[in-house]
Every structure is written in C-alpha cells, then in structure tokens.
C-alpha cells in the first residue's frame, strides 16, 4: 500500500509538472493580452510535432528538438500577438474568435503535414530510477519534472527580480498608463506571448515521447488548464501552479483508487466548490473577473 501511494505520488508530481507549464502560459497570456487563448492546447500540440519532425523523423538530438519546440511555438505565439491579438486589442471577444480560428488552422495543418494517425516517437531513454520494485520513476518523466521546476523558477525569478515583472503587471492592469511610465506595452506583450506559448510548446515537446501525439491532442490539456487557472484565480501565476498541483494530485489519486471518469467529475466538482466558496478562485482578486 505504501508503495502504491508512493508511486501514485510520483505520477501526480509528473502530472502537476506539465499541467502547470501549460496553465502558467495560459495565465500569462490572459494576464497581458486580456484574451482567453483557446488555441493554447494546439500550441502544446505544435510543440509535440516539432519533436516528431526533428527528433523522430530527422534524428536531431532530443533536447535540441525540445529547445526547437520551445522556440518554434514561442514564435507562433509572437505570430498570434502580431497578427491576431494586437489588431484586436480592444476586442476580447474578437481575440477569442481569432484564437479559435487559429486553433482550427493549426489542427488542420498538423493533419495535412502528418496525417491523423498517432505519431511514433522513439523513446529518449528507457532508464528508470527504481526506488523499489513497485516504485519507479522513468527518467523521461523526470526530465519533465525537472524542466517544469527549472522553467517555473526561472520565470518566477524573471518576474519578481527583473523589471519585466513590473512591466508585465502594469501593462496587464492598464496598458495606456503603463506606456506613460515608459513601459513598452508591445514589447511586454511579445515577451509574454513568447514565454506563454513557449511553455506550452516545451510541455508538448517534452511529453511527446510519453503520450500519443496526434493533431487533436490539445483538447484534453486545455480543458484541464482551464479548470486549473480558474481554481487558481485567473491572472495569478502562483494560483495556477498551486491549483495544478492540487488538481494533479486529486485527479491522479482518484484515478488510481477509483477510476478515471470519477476523477474527471471530482476535478470539475472541486472547481465548482472552490468557485462557490470563493468566486474568484484561490488567488484571484474580485476586480479582474
């Protein structure tokens, strides 16, 4: 039983890692651009396909492919910023529709480029850290955990310790006033889109060898990410991370001890309960709704 708990705990830590990477990106984009990026799941998918294209099909070393995934998807983020969100800055509903359109395009491009079938990605490593016969942490999952911890720490440092964090918060709250303080709102938006999208791409790229990569894989991750950022409080990065951890543990443990469908219902109920008790999420403030 202890072993089962320990293994489930490890599974949950992994889940929390990639969920928080995706959720934090979504929050960052929402915070700065003021739009809900429906295409975020497809950015995750795009990251995975970069690994397919480079690592699985062209034998580029895995970590280079992952870095390329981060950069490529980050650039997609910049493209969205320039082509969609900037022209639609005062039109959040328009931004929503545009991101839905972008989602459809990305999906269709993936289908056209790679087909609808699940993609094969050779394993990066088959090594496993065996704590005991029944408690095992595959190295490939450890990579994801490490990446999440490192990237989130870097982001945290970047936001708290550099002026960018100020710029980000200020432009999220009032872009015009931020510009009057000498903050380049466009630059801030670009950085936020690059990081936000890049994190989704990174998560997709890193987990690509562990999941079934197909053009529609973005759907389930974005549903999870939505739940997580709502529970955390929209706009709060700390909230997103905390909620990812809570959600991942609840979902993983319920899956293991009951079943997967109950776990989904539990996750959603958790969210509704949090919202009934605190309608702005764990860390949200009332006025940003």
């Amino acid at each position: 039983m202890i072993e089962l708990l320990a293994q489930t705990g490890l599974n949950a830590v992994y889940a929390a890692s990639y969920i928080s990477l995706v959720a934090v990106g979504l929050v960052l984009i929402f915070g700065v651009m003021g739009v809900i990026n429906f295409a975020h799941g497809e950015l995750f998918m795009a990251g995975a396909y970069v690994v397919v294209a480079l690592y699985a099909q062209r034998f580029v070393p895995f970590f280079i492919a992952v870095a390329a995934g981060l950069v490529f998807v980050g650039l997609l983020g910049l493209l969205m910023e320039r082509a969609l969100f900037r022209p639609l800055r005062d039109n959040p509903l328009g931004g929503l529709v545009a991101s839905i359109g972008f989602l459809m395009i990305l999906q269709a491009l993936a289908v056209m480029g790679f087909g609808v079938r699940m993609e094969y990605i050779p394993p990066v490593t088959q090594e496993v850290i065996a704590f005991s016969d029944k408690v095992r942490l595959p190295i490939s999952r450890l990579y994801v955990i490490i990446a999440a911890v490192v990237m989130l720490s870097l982001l945290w440092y970047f936001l708290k310790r550099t002026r960018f964090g100020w710029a980000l918060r200020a432009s999220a709250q009032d872009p015009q006033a931020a510009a009057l303080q000498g903050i380049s709102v466009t630059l801030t938006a670009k950085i936020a889109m690059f990081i936000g999208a890049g994190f989704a791409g990174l998560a997709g790229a890193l987990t690509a060898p562990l999941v079934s990569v197909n053009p529609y894989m973005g759907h389930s991750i974005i549903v999870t990410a939505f739940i997580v950022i709502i529970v955390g409080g929209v706009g709060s990065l700390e909230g997103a991370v905390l909620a990812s951890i809570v959600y991942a543990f609840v979902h993983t443990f319920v899956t293991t001890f009951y079943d997967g469908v109950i776990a989904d219902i539990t996750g959603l109920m958790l969210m509704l309960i949090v919202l009934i008790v605190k309608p702005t999420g764990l860390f949200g403030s009332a006025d940003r709704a």
Partner: protein
Amino acid sequence: MFIWTVIAAILFALPNLLSFSQQEVLVFLTINILVVASYRLLTLTGEWSLGHVVIMGVGAYASAMLTKSSGLYVPLGIVMGGVVAGLTALALSYPLFRMKGFYFLIGSFAAGEIIRLLWKRFREPFGGTKGIKGIDPMPDFSVGFYDFDFFEPTSYFYFSAIVVAICLWILWRIEKSPIGLTFQAVHWQDKLAQASGVNLRAYRTLAFVIASGFAGIAGALLAHYIGTINPNSFDVEVMVFVLTWAIVGGTSTFYGPILGCVVLTILNEVVLRELGLEQTRPLIYGLILILSILFMPNGLESIVQKFTRQKERRSLRPEEAK
C-alpha cells in the same frame, strides 16, 4: 406586414429550390438559428456561457426520454424539453451567478461538462456514451392541402420553421421590451442598474433561464429529427461554433448572430463541401473566422447596417430638398 408575407412565401418556396442534402442542412440551420438567437438573449446581460449547448442537450434528453418512456405526445415533449432545460438553468444559476465574466465563462463550461459526464456515466436512464437512439419522430399528420411526412426534410423544415419563428418572435418581444432594456442595463453598468432598483441576480437568472428554455426547445427539435442524441452531440466543439456564429455575426443587433449562423453554416456546409474541399475545410473555416473578425470587428451585421443606413440617408434626401 407585406414584407413578412414575402418572407413567409420565400421560406415556403425555399426547400423546393434545394437539393435533398441542402434541405437537410436547412433543417439543422433552422434549429441552430434558435440556438444562437436564444444565446443572444443571455449575452444581452453581458455573460458569455460555454454551457449553452449542453443546456440545449438537456432539452433534447428530456424530450427524448419523456416521449420514449411515458409516450408523451412529441410536440408536448418538445415544450417539456424547454421547460426542463429552463429549470436546469435555474438550478445552475445558484453556483454560476456567484461568478462573472471569465469566471462565469469557464464556470458554465465546467457545469456543462459535469452534466455531460453524468449522461456518460449513468447508462440508466441516459444511455451512457452511446446516448439515446430511436427517439420518436414527430407523428405525421395532414392539414388537408399538405401532408406532413416528418422523415422528409421539407416537412420538418416547415414544422421547425414555424416553431422557431414563434420562439424568435417571443425572444424579439423580450429583447425589445423593458425587460430586454434591463438586461442591457445589467450588462453595461450593473452598479447603476442596481441603484435604479434592478435586482441583478434575478435578472441574470431570468435571462439565463429564458435563453436555456429556448435552447432546450431547439435541442428537442433536433432530437426528434435525427432520432438519436449522445453526449458528444453537445460537446464544447459544437459550443465553439455557436460562439463564433454569435460573435462573427455581431453582438449589437437581434439579427446579427442569426446572420452569422446562416452565413457561416452555408459557407462551411454547402460552399466548402461543394468545392470538394472535404479535408481542408477546417483550415479554411479557421481562416474565415480570423479574417472576418479582423476586417469586420463589428460583425457581419455592420455591413447590413451600413447598407440600410445608406438607404435611410437616400430616402431622407428628397425631403431635405423640399
């Protein structure tokens, strides 16, 4: 009055000008018009729900189950579908209207997902993932000069067009009434509305319940036509389409969302299919969404408005000349 007669005549003639599969599309289009139009009523209060299609599903399930299990007469079942959907919305309004804006958007999505998971989980009575099959069709009948055969899309189009027209009329009456005005007041300045004595919670709930009721009717209409429903028929992808119809159509007029629904459906289901673009359809549809929102940020309705305003001006000029 004359214009309405003309429209009625056109609608009557319309199916006879179409191919069979286009007639089928026409039926679904008619039903979807009710879905977006009811959605608009909710958005009048400024809240955008992602659960509207699931609520529509509640109507479909309710009507399908009532007619199937207790042999309720189908038209009554359709009405009951609306009632059950409205009551469901009433129950949901308690948790949901503690939230606003983005929270409401995602909260309504979660509530919808829970309902869908319940359908999936409980094979008794909801039929699980396969849903409900063999739903009673509308019983055929004859009105003397016309025999309704509800297998035929044309017949079902006439039937649903009448139902939808009545619903639209009611929705329109509501929007143009002091209640509709209050909804808008709640949207634009909820505090000021409250200071004028408006009970925000009550009005938000009212809009949600009415919109849901009509969505339920639309769902029931759909169920009795296709004869089957399942949880996936009401998933978020369908919702995304409703959302894009409403926004691409435009949010400032009653007809905007309807226009969006008609134009986008025709583009997607008729034009792109006719062009033989079966597999690139999603790509092109996505492009259309983006381009239309970039170049018509105020929706398709803004084109119509420009057109009609020009007309107004033209008709004004002679008077000015006098």
